[in-house]
């Protein structure tokens, strides 16, 4: 079922991003700092992006539709990281 090596790497990236999301969200819950919330959301969307880009392993017919959402989430992730860096507390 998982044939392409890059699909495997994407899937592992998604799992890693999910782990980082959990850590960053726990950090936000403890500290209640806006910066941490933005970082955790960035990792959350990164995880979704990872799973989406690996999803043609499971749904090979999705094609172009997934490509658009992948690019859009990429933009959101970068935007959230930029906002986190600019946030002063």
């Amino acid at each position, binding site marked *: 079922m998982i044939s392409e090596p890059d699909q495997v790497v994407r899937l592992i990236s998604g799992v890693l991003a999910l782990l980082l999301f959990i850590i*960053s969200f726990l950090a936000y819950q403890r500290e209640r700092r806006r910066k941490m919330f933005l970082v955790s959301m960035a990792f959350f969307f990164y995880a979704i992006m990872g799973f989406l880009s690996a999803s043609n392993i499971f749904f090979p017919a999705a094609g172009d539709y997934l490509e658009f959402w992948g690019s859009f989430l990429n933009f959101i992730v970068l935007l959230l990281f930029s906002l986190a860096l600019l946030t002063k507390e």
Partner: protein
Amino acid sequence: MEFELETRKRIYELIRDSPGVHLRELTRRLDIVIGSLQYNLHYMEKKNMIYSIKDEDYVRYFVKDRKFGEDEQNILSFLRRTACRHILINLLQNGTMNNKELSDAVALSPSTVSWHLNKLAGSGVITKEKVGRISNFTVTDPELVAELLILYKESFLDSLLDSFIDMWELDKKKSKNDLQSV
């Protein structure tokens, strides 16, 4: 204050890890003179942190299971955060400090320290007193905070979250003094 806190923390941790340890063993393993050890053990017994049982020739020590009240839980939640813990330790050592002095002592930017100070003052753990344009801060109940510092034990999750937060503390200054050991 710092020395006493560290000594009491070492004693408490050894008793917690070796329940029933006796006085001579404590002296030997901690390398503390017996007079100082007895003084600190007496203080911790009085504060209900430990209890002792007379067993023939030995007095054996055990840590007391303790349920924390709302105020204590509030302080412990601040002690879990490295920055707040360092702020509280500095305030315990020096009595009263302002934002700039604390910022230098804990090696964080004044804005980050101010953010933590507001949280600590808002929950009543520290008291803010304005003198002209400068705000001075003191620990509201130094005895209780010092006591909880002895009981506090950092978990793996705490250190993991601290490392993660440190990664994003881009405004961190170079540390002047290392407080990790306390």
